[in-house]
């Protein structure tokens, strides 16, 4: 009996050791290739499985191939796995890469790691939502969507659908609704503000200056009095971050008879509009009805765009985000001056949703 045990142990230990030696030989080869000048970039994303991050990874790999760098793309299992991501960032730094591209889940949790990178003089490039409120000098540049410009794009898209109604409104008040998930996050607020500002500008072009009142959330209001204004843009922000609360706000807007357009400034808000509309018999949004415009993707929203209930939507460009992140990281590692890059946003509707240009950017 004892002998059997001993043999077992021996086999186990020797197999582990031989495995180790085998792998050691293998990795030494890759070490030497790294010395051959290939730059090593660690990319730490906010996720891994989600289609959005898959697209980011594709972009990152494209850049790695183009500039002959080696990348390691990692991300936690979901957007609440902060501890897992912090361990990943630490790991990435310990590997002493040429640069790190980072989309931090939580800046506070990552501060120690970011400090360590600075001490080791490893440049950090932010991508997607980047590293908000990062200590000065730690993040050299960001590759992210210019959310304000993306919001403007949404306004331009919607305006095509409501232009006639705006021009032909004779005396009756017309209303454009905006559902925003929140007004604390910079990215979502910028998307909302970009939309509101651009829409005011476009509508004023038709009805004259000072004729568009922005009401609703205090942070977004303008000075024009609602009373007597021919066009009202009404923003609504749910009190809680729940689907139900978002839906309530959207429904309040949809039930106003003077509503001609409605915009949801992220996936949450777009979903709220769709769900609210489902709850109204007959539905209020669609062609020749209320013109609805969304942001990002998601199964529900994609279906709404395909079936033309949504006039269109804005999508970010995750492939470009990944590509630019790695490109910036490589430039930073070379010591070149780097600056923020807008990775762009695109308008999509039923006509181009399946096109080669748009389809890879969308996710369910």
């Amino acid at each position: 009996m004892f002998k059997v045990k001993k043999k077992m142990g021996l086999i186990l230990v020797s197999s582990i050791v031989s495995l180790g030696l085998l792998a050691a030989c293998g990795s030494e080869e890759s070490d030497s290739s790294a010395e051959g000048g290939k730059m090593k970039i660690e990319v730490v994303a906010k996720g891994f499985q989600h289609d959005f991050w898959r697209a980011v990874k594709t972009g990152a790999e494209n850049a790695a191939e183009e500039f002959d760098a080696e990348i390691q793309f990692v991300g936690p299992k979901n957007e609440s796995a902060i501890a897992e991501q912090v361990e990943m960032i630490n790991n990435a730094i310990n590997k002493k890469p040429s640069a790190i591209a980072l989309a931090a889940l939580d800046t506070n949790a990552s501060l120690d790691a970011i400090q360590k990178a600075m001490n080791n003089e490893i440049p950090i490039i932010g991508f997607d939502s980047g590293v908000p409120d990062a200590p000065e000098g730690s993040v050299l540049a960001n590759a992210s969507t210019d959310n304000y410009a993306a919001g403007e794009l949404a306004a331009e898209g919607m305006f095509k659908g409501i232009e006639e109604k705006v021009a032909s409104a004779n005396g009756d008040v017309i209303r454009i609704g905006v559902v925003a998930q929140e007004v604390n996050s910079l990215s979502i607020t910028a998307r909302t503000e970009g939309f509101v500002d651009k829409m005011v500008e476009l509508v004023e072009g038709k009805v004259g200056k000072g004729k568009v009142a922005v009401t609703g959330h205090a942070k977004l209001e303008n000075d024009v009095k609602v009373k007597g204004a021919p066009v009202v843009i009404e923003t609504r922000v749910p009190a809680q971050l729940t689907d139900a609360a978002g839906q309530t706000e959207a429904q309040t807007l949809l039930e106003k008879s003077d509503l001609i357009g409605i915009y949801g400034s992220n996936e949450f808000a777009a979903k709220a509009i769709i769900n609210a509309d489902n709850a109204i018999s007959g539905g209020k949004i669609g062609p020749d009805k209320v013109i609805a415009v969304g942001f990002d993707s998601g199964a529900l929203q994609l279906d709404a765009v395909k079936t033309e209930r949504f006039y269109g939507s804005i999508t970010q460009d995750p492939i470009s985000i990944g590509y630019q992140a790695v490109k910036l990281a490589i430039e930073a590692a070379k010591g070149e001056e780097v600056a923020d890059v807008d990775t762009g946003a695109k308008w999509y509707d039923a006509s181009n949703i399946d096109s080669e240009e748009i389809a890879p950017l969308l996710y369910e």
Partner: protein
Amino acid sequence: MNTKIEKEHSSNLLLSITKNQKFIAAVALFIIYLFFFVSSTAFRSTDTLTSIFDASYYIGFLAIGVTFVIITGGIDLSIGTVMMCTAIIGGVLYTNLGLPLWLALLSMIAVGALFGLINGVLVARFKLPAFIATLGTMMVARGLGSIVSDVQSITFPLRGSEDGWYKSIFRLENNFPMGIVVLLIFTILAAVILNKTKIGRYIFAIGSNREATRLSGVNVNKWETLAYVISGICAGVAGIAYAATYTTILPGEGAGFELDAIAGVVIGGTSLSGGVGTIFGTIIGVFIMSVLKVGLPYIDLQPHYQLFITGIVVIIAVYFDVRRRYKRG
């Protein structure tokens, strides 16, 4: 004559294997570390070692606590979410209610102990199966964290801020991993309680044979409950370690950490059927998992390979456990 010798031989064997399991785990830890050390030049840094320690603290405390419960023959599935729940409650007490930080941290341990007490009473007094009772408190803790925080994330004070001192319990300003010292002291303390005190003796006795222990006049309900309370206290300490290491606490998280801790316990040679186990084995088990977690990316394997490999290690460890019991039987 022959059979007698064989019997003696096998009882010696039993003794040597019981000691062996911890030994095997230590050797495995050494080999795994050596493997990464040889494979990757970047792995050979103190920063990497610090990362391994960082990843071990909270799981280490959880695992030490649950070792007591597992030795009684029970299980505690609630520790992961209880840990997060204590951290959220501590954070709310500090940020929203303005309690001094030291008091908030102590309250976390108290909350953990309370959860342990509830588990203990449910299992020892009301005879609920430990698996089900602690599954229930696991969900309760998860929900409670969300209720208390109103589903908002909680941020503990940052390093360098007025109340940032608690971070130095686990990492000094000069990056010295103080936490490993704290964890080792805690380990020794737990080992002394388990091996040198009445508490430990009765916990082992309950795990070996609950009925015999009861018949010999021991208040088994009390000591079994105490094992769960110890587990809860450790979850509170783990909550402090987690907050110090990761700063931001999200409500509704923590599920899954208990399985990491239990895996560490099993790898370290503690028998899931109770009556056998060591604290040092548990710590070695935890470090095996941390070394794998931190080491694998160095050989360009994604972290999910860690799950795969840890799973195999757990199966091997349980295999040894089953062999041992088979022989004892």
